[in-house]
């Protein structure tokens, strides 16, 4: 067991849950803010469904962007870690499409804690579970805590 900002953490401790239900309006707003439509570049290529749905007014075609769901998962982490924590890396796998109004429960578990000379490295498995008990996003994250 180690101390991170006076809070004891152990391997196996769970973090979260953080529940998100992205509405269609929120999804469209995020897509607009993230320039997922109407702009040439890599985002168009990577978000064909969203772009076509937005441009053609086909709301059924709109899916929640990978970036939006990734934002939820990283929010789970930043909500949990105190200000001396630093998200050093996250390795995400996008496994399933997320649609507006899906119920997304973001959760995580501490898988390892490594004490180093002047910092502590905490490893997390984090994921999003939907209303069908599927995991559309899974990730491994590394958090550094300075002593």
């Amino acid at each position, binding site marked *: 067991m180690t101390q991170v900002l006076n809070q004891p953490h152990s391997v196996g401790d769970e973090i979260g849950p953080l529940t*998100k239900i992205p509405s269609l309006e*929120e999804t469209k*707003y*995020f897509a607009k*803010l*993230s*320039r997922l439509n109407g*702009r*040439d*570049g*890599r*985002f168009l*290529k*990577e978000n*064909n*469904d969203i772009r076509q749905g937005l441009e053609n007014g086909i709301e059924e075609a709109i899916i929640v962007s*990978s*970036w*939006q769901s*990734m*934002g*939820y998962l*990283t*929010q789970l*982490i*930043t*909500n949990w870690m105190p*200000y*001396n924590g*630093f*998200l*050093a*890396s*996250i*390795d*995400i*796998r*996008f496994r399933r499409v997320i649609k507006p109004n899906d119920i997304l429960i973001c959760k995580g578990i501490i898988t390892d804690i490594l004490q180093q000379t002047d910092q502590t490295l905490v490893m997390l498995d984090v994921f999003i579970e939907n209303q069908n008990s599927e995991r559309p996003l899974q990730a491994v994250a590394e958090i550094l805590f300075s002593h």
Partner: protein
Amino acid sequence: MSNANKNGEVNFDRGVLGKEIDIGSHYVSEAELVSYAKSLGETNPIYIDPVFANSGPHRSIIATPGYYTAIPLKPSLDPNIEFTTNSFSYMAGQKVIYKNHIKAGDTLHARSQVTNVYTKTGRSGALIFIERKTTYLNQHNDTVLIVESSNVRADNKL
């Protein structure tokens, strides 16, 4: 018709592999960071409250971890794969290595390269993966983050 060569490897412009190009720069405003954070329902004051953030540990609003995805950039090099089906591509995975916080007032520059193109047979048929590495630097030339991404597209006639 197939886009694979006689060894079953996908045909693409191999000249793009490892060729790093500048894909643009972007000034990061406080308003943009706050809007982006709020669009995700963020409530942490270090991301959305300038008064709190300016007196906090970073002395500035900082970017949420996914903010980099909203930065407008030019496309990276295209390996020019001749896809034989009309399927769409999607993000399979990303590894993001964070080095420094992105702060309001930063000007970011990004460089990108195609690092790998390969095929794999999944349950639904042939898949073509394109991997890229994008490095973001701030105005001090410090690396703020490195993104290793993998895009996939089905191509069942491979």
